[in-house]
Every structure is written in C-alpha cells, then in structure tokens.
C-alpha cells in the first residue's frame, strides 16, 4: 500500500474573474522511504496541490479528488478534527520562506514544544529534552541556548533548520518540502538539501520535494513528476527522465539547465510564460510555447502510457524525436534555432 495516493486532484479558486483551475487532475503516489520530486515553473500548481492535501488552502479553494488517501485512510471524508491528528504528526510540511514561516512572537523552543505537546503529549522536561535532540539533529550549534531564541535572531538557513526540526518533531511518515532552499544562499541550499536527504534516509519517511530547479532534482530525487499549468505532464524515475524526457516541456526544462546549454551562448530558457486564468489554451496547455505544436494540439491532447512516462502529449519524444509528428525534422530544426 502506498503511503500517499492522490488521484485526479483538482483545485479551483473562486476568483473575481471567475473560477480558476490551479490544479487540474493531478495524480501521484508516494511510498514510504521514497523521494518524489515535483518540478515545474512558477504557477504550475505545485504548492497548491500540496496545500490542498494539508488542508491549508483558504475557503475560496474548491478541492475535488477521486482518491486522497494516506496510509489507506480517506482524507476527503475525514472530519477536520481527525485530520488535524494526522497533519503535523504524520504528514509535515516545510515552506519556501523560512524567515516568515516562524512566528515572530514565540521562541524556537515554544514553537517546537507545542507540537510535541499536542501530538505526543510530552511533559515540560521531555519536551525540552526532545527539542534539544531535534535541533542537534538538524545541525544547529548550541541547541539548548537556541531554544530561547526568537526567529528574528536566526539567519535564513538557521530558520529553515528550525522548520525542519519542527516538521520532524513527531517522526512524520511523510515530509513535504515546498521549495525549501529557494530563498537561501547557494552554499546554504546544498547544506539544507543534504540534510533533508540524509534525514529522509535515516528515518525512512517519504519525502515530496517541490522545486523548480532541475539541478536539485538530479541530486536528490528518485522519481520525478513534472507539472505544467496545474497538470501533470510527465512522470519518470530521475535517471530515465534526464536521459530521455518524453514531454517537450520536460525536454525544454532540461535544455535550460546550465550544464546542458551547449555552445556557451546565453542560457536557453523556455520562451513565453505559464498560461494564467484568462489565456488558457483549448487543449494542450503547453501548445503556445511548444515547437512541435500542430493543429491537433489545439483540438485535443492525449495521455501516453506509462512506458512513455505518462506524457500528456500528442507527439511524445523518444530520444528527442517527436513520435507520430507529421514533420519531425522541420520541427526539430526550428527548436534548435530557438535554443541557440
């Protein structure tokens, strides 16, 4: 039984300009001890899908899913009270902005301790003991003194370590890390990633690592799910994904990696932006930015089988060649031009 199963998750925001689907039929599973990476540009619904799972979206969000199960328990039908026994304890989450994610009015010790009291019922002395252990675990020097520190006295990296310690306090079975290093300095980024992966290995928890950085994916993940404009467009084990991406969007993301950009010209990036609520293409959402797009892509789009990475594309790439495309050579030439 997978640790987490999500099937056909859809999140619709009620906005002033009408309903907006931020997440559109996303499915995913995570097993214990596994790292799943979710990648995609800004606005592709990575955070929203995980916040939906945690029950942290505002009331303007309508959440629908065929299946939303954790350890076999249905999360959708569950009462808010029952869900709060799982959230924070068995499923924990850390966020992109460590500096603003800690409450400025309370000490580090208080913020870790309140989880230990709520979920584990620990007494004052045990809480202190365990908090010190946790801070040690995440590599914070002088942990006993840090307990009485306020968040504004911590650096970004330290704050993220505290957030991780807090998330790990009740030994969660699943940790969701939403771009945990985006707001940090490059050197600190690597440290925090190493820490997360090491802790994941030690505790055998499942880890969902959200990022828009393919480099991070290459270093950490085992399985990768690529999201675009709220849809899952491809899913593969990390090595296969890097070797042979099937969706043009994935291929473009990989081509944008600095070490892959050949010809020492300027960094290639994908032209255009993720469609917003008002400019959604009719069928394939990547169509306006795709160099392989044909008329068919404006009418319909097809989900490929697992052997092709579940790519949501009419002409999935195999070794860089669009399968079934009417004029593959011309399209490739055009793409090459764009990349240079």
């Amino acid at each position, binding site marked *: 039984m997978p640790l987490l199963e999500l099937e056909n998750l859809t999140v619709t925001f009620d906005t002033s300009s009408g309903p907006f689907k931020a997440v559109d039929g996303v499915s995913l599973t995570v097993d214990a001890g596994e790292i799943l990476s979710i990648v995609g540009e800004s606005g592709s619904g990575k955070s929203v899908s995980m916040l939906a799972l945690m029950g942290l979206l505002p009331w303007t969000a309508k959440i629908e899913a065929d299946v939303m199960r954790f350890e076999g328990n249905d999360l959708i039908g569950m009462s808010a009270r029952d869900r709060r026994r799982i959230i*924070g304890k068995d499923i924990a989450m850390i966020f992109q902005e460590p500096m*603003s994610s800690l409450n400025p009015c309370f000490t580090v010790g208080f913020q870790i301790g309140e989880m230990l009291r709520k979920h584990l019922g620990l007494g004052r002395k045990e809480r202190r003991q365990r908090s010190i252990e946790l801070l040690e675990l995440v590599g914070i020097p002088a942990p006993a003194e840090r307990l009485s520190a306020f968040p*504004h006295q911590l650096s970004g990296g330290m704050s993220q370590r505290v957030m991780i310690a807090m998330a790990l306090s009740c030994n969660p079975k699943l940790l969701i890390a939403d771009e945990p290093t985006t707001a940090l300095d490059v050197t600190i980024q690597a440290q925090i990633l190493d820490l997360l992966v090491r802790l994941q290995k030690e505790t055998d928890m499942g880890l969902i690592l959200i990022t828009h950085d393919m480099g991070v994916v290459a270093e950490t993940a085992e399985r990768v799910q690529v999201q675009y404009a709220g849809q899952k467009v491809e899913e593969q084990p990390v090595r296969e994904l890097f070797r042979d991406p099937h969706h043009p969007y994935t291929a473009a993301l990989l081509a944008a990696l600095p070490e892959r950009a050949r010809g020492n010209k300027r960094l290639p990036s994908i032209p255009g932006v993720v469609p917003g609520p008002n400019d959604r293409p009719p069928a394939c959402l990547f169509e306006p930015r795709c160099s392989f797009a044909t008329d068919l892509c404006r009418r319909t789009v097809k989900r490929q089988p697992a052997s092709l990475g579940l790519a949501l594309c009419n002409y999935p790439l195999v070794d860089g060649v669009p399968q079934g495309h009417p004029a593959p050579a011309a399209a490739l030439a055009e793409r090459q031009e764009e990349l240079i």
Partner: protein
Amino acid sequence: MLRFFLSRLALIIPTFIGVSIISFAFIRLLPGDPIMLLAGERGMSAERYAQLSAEMGFDRPLVAQYFDYLMGILQGDLGTSIVTRRPVLDEFFTLFPATIELALCAIVLATALGIPLGVLAAVKRGTWIDQTVMGTALVGYSMPIFWWGLLLIILFSGTLGWTPVSGRISLLYFFPPVTGFMLIDSLLSGQDGAFLSALSHLILPTIVLATIPLAVIARQTRSAMLEVLGEDYVRTARSKGLSPRRVIGLHALRNAMIPVVTTIGLQVGVLLAGAILTETIFSWPGIGKWMVDSVFRRDYAVVQGGLLLIAIIIMFVNLLVDMLYGLINPRIRH
C-alpha cells in the same frame, strides 16, 4: 530597555514645557475676568477689585505670572483655586479617583468587547457578522457623545427606570472615602446595597465613555487580524495540526495585538477628553467635570494646573504603553 526609557524621558521635558505654556495661555485667551465672575451679580468696588487682583497676582505682567507659575510647578505647587481656596493639587487628588474609576471601567469594557469583536469580524470576513460588527463600529465611532449619553439616560433612566441619572452612588449611603474608588469603598463600608448602587451609577457613564474606544479597538483589531491571518507563520501554525482556536487566539492574535496595544494606549487621551463630556452629562464628580466648571468660573489656577496634570498622565500612560509594546514585541525587546 533603559536607554529606550531614558530617550522617552528626554522627550517628555520639552513636551512638559510646551503644555505648561499652552495651558497657561489658553484660559487667559478666553474673554471674562475671574474676579468679576467671582463677585457675581453684586459687582465689586474698585478698591476691593484691586486688592483681590494683587492678592492673586493678576496685576503682574503675564510673563512674570507665567514665571511664578513655572517656579511653583518646580516646587510641586500648582497654585490655589480662586473659588474654593484649596490647593489645585489637593482638589485634583480628591477628584481624580472618580475619573480613573470611570475611565478604567470604560477601557476595560472597550477592550474586553472590542478585541473579540474585531477578531470575530476578521475571521468571518465578508459575512453578515463582519458587516454587522463593522457597521455598528462605524456608528459608534461617529457617535456624538453628548447626544448618546442623553439618549441612554432618557431610555434607561427615564422610560425604563433601571439606572440612576447622575452621581456616583445613592444619597442613602454615606461613608468616608478610603481608596477613592466607589466600587471598592462601597464594599469596604459593609453597608447593604451600597456596592450595587455604586455599580448601577457606573453603568451608563461607562457605556457612553467606552463607545468610541470600543469602536476604534474593534476596527483596529479586525484590520490587524486580517493582515496577520494571511502571514506565513499562521499557515505554519495550521500545518502543525493545531486547533483553529489556538491558531487564531494565540498565533495570530498575539501578533495582531502589537498594533492594537498602541491603539489602546492612544485611547487614553480620547478617554480623558470623553470624560469631560461624560462627567458633565452624568454629574460625575471627576476631573472632567472639574475642568468644565473651572473654565466657566475662569478659575485660572485650576484650569492651567488641571490641564498640565492631565497632559502628564497622558504622557505617562503613553510611556507605559511603549514599554508594554516592547514587552509583547520580541523584535523590540532584543
């Protein structure tokens, strides 16, 4: 903290001098002669007038009078009322407890109701609850106090006969003041019904005086809460599986209180200004009514001394609020 305190103290001295000049000048700018008012209808002989004038120092140049006044202050002497012939400071301390009692009750009421209402409105943002609370607050905020007080007296004291019209306690009870606070003194007196009588006298003035601060506190709490509820750390608190009660009542409210405490502190000035009207409507023997009476009598010493004392109180309370602000905001404390 000490440096903070000292820097605030340094600000108080120029403010103090400014207020002393303004309060000295204000009452003298009003037309009317205190000695003629004292004489009343009967009038007064020119010799008697000159004698009284010299006695009270009114014949000296204004600058000299101000200087006398300032020297007096430095020696802790605020002068003597020309009407009662009692030292201003003595009168002040006799009447002040009545005002404190009323103002404390009002600010407690305004805070105790305003904060929960503001939180409720923020949490139920956009619903009829929010609209009702904020609509009522807007009405309360723009309520003319005098009119509002009379309205309540007519309804509750007149038509319904539930509450007394004026004073601090029924004339049936008499006991010497111990603390000056009628609620406490009436309990200490041990007389049957004294406490209830004092309480019933307090209700209407408290409501009237609390109305504007209540509206201000509710609005400020709502907007502070709305801002805080969108913060990342509130999401973190919810992601920990804490109950909504704890997330809103502890994690969010604690941060929202930082601006609200400042607002409450600023209400002290509003309260003392409101006390002048409220005490006049309800014949409440406090410093507000004392000030109004003294202005009508052109009792120079009382008005200038009283204003100065009120200003000192406001400055002192603001200092207290600033320190409290430092206490609840860790970013200032460290």
